[in-house]
């Protein structure tokens, strides 16, 4: 990957899907380039198509028309195994509701992506611990999600997203379930990861003051991006 290759390049991406027999045109021609090291916020009301865009960016779904290059690799023609491999290595997800496995310790949650990457057990544990310590959770390694606060759970989720050293962090309303003080903490962590480690972040939110933490704000409306 050369320095000039953007992490994300979307060109003329359309997506339609059928919902209860009605065709929904969720994306109507998206062009977007995100360079390495950028922190981009995508804003939009519900129904604007931002979730669909997020799914495509996260390789959970593929474009109906148009092309998507992630780190220079075209993903449109990839099969489900190849998409799984990309999600595993290139993308880290953070969700609004954390999506941690219940009744599973923080370390076991964080090491999960490494299981699918084929890393052996000792190395998985070592890296999961290191990542949790980096998130300030060194004392909470064996805690289950139910024993952690919302902010702590989101840090575990962040550790899980970053343990595979992905090129891109995708955050879908990461502060939606957190109080304002904890939200600020998480956003400060994002800014630190972006500035100190050069992590590329795409943040999806409907709140302008959250989006304001990003370096660039984009607005989605009716399946189109407005710069």
């Amino acid at each position, binding site marked *: 990957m050369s320095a000039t290759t953007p992490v994300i390049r979307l060109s003329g991406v359309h997506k339609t899907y059928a919902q209860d027999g009605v065709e929904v045109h969720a994306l109507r021609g998206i062009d977007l380039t995100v360079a390495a090291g950028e922190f981009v916020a995508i804003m939009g009301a519900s129904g604007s198509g931002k979730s669909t865009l997020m799914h495509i960016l996260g390789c959970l779904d593929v474009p109906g028309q148009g092309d998507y290059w992630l780190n220079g690799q075209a993903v449109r023609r990839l099969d489900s195994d190849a998409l799984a491999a990309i*999600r595993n290595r290139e993308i880290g997800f953070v969700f609004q509701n954390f999506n941690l496995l219940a009744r599973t310790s923080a370390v076991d949650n964080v090491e*999960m992506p490494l*299981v699918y990457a084929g890393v052996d057990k000792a190395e998985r544990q070592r890296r999961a611990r290191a990542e949790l310590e980096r998130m300030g959770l060194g004392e909470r390694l064996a805690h289950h999600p139910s024993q952690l606060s919302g902010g702590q759970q989101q840090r575990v989720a962040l550790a899980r997203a970053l343990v595979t050293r992905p090129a891109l962090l995708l955050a879908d309303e990461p502060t939606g379930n957190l109080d304002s003080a904890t939200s600020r903490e998480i956003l400060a962590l994002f800014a630190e990861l972006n500035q100190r480690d050069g992590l590329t972040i795409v943040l999806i939110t409907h709140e302008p003051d959250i989006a304001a933490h990003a370096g660039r704000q984009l607005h989605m409306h009716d399946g189109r991006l407005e710069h």
Partner: protein
Amino acid sequence: MIWTTALQLAVRALWRNKVRALLTALGVIIGVGSVITMLAVGAGAQERIARQLENLGSNNLMLRSGSSLRGGVRTGAGSNTSLTRADAEAIRALPGVLAVSPTVRTGAQALYRGSNWGTIVEGVTPDYLKTRSWGLESGEFFSERQVAAAVDVCVLGRTVVRELFGLVDPVGEIVILKGLACRVIGVLSEKGAGNWGNDQDDIILAPLTTVQRKFMGISHVDRIEVQAAGKAAAASAYKEIQRLLRARHRLQEGQANDFRIYNRAELASSAEESASVFAWLLGSIASVSLLVGGIGIMNIMLVSVTERTREIGIRMALGARRRDILWQFLLEALVLSGIGGLVGVALGIAAALLLGSFSEFEIRIVPWSVALAFSFAAMIGVFFGLHPARKASSLQPIEALRYE
């Protein structure tokens, strides 16, 4: 994904729902256990029947005199006096006949010094040991010459020896039978209980002629046991003997036989057949419960897939391929059925042994039945685990993630 990791994952997921996993495995445990126990009971019964038939001499024909008609009264089988030792000698000359043993029997009180014992005295010829597949423990058996001379000797069964002699060696001693002093020349080996629970060792054998003339005052015989060379020989001897005896007894065309003839080989094969039907019946009833156990696995795995839809979505988002998810759920089903199978094997063997020691059932644990039951359990795990696992792996990641 690494195999050991996948297995660990499966065990951990099951461990999270311990009670549920246990109850699901219980279906397989009971299924496998009952297959093994039932087949052990069936095989035990088969073996017991086979041994009893061998004991009887399965290629044997048995002749008894028929009923007689005296003044309009038909008496029962054996009441006639039509069979003689000469008949037996004539049968011995037939092809395919190995041994012929004419016998008479009577009850007698046996006396030895201070003790006495009521038993049966059977008058026999040396062929008796062959047709009954019996042997001697000590001493010797009487010869044809001793039979011809009606010598006063006898051979004792184990029970008689125990009751009359205790620990004394009876060979060479004299017992009194119906006032006659008989020298004991041999002791029969232990034969055990007969088919109807009778004690076969409670017997005294004496030369046929001695019993006929000196004890009973008769010249006919009660029965003639014929040993044929094989099953086919028994079948042909069956016909030959009828033809021969009808001629010897001068029976007219249309007149009924004055003797009865039974083919034990036929009895044997039908008994063997019913024993094997019995064994398979038990086995198949038990395998139905194994099948029900398998359906239990499928049921629980389907519930589990639905419950863990979100987990499946998360795993897919984090890089699990479809086959990783498929294997995760298939392995859970396999671990359930595998552990259920192992515990079932242990419990089945234990139950069979317990049944063998506390009941009348004869138990024979057949190694192939253990292998069969266990592999059947594993197959059931794959078969009933595959559908839920496919269902899990075919979920769309987005749908699964959104699932509430």
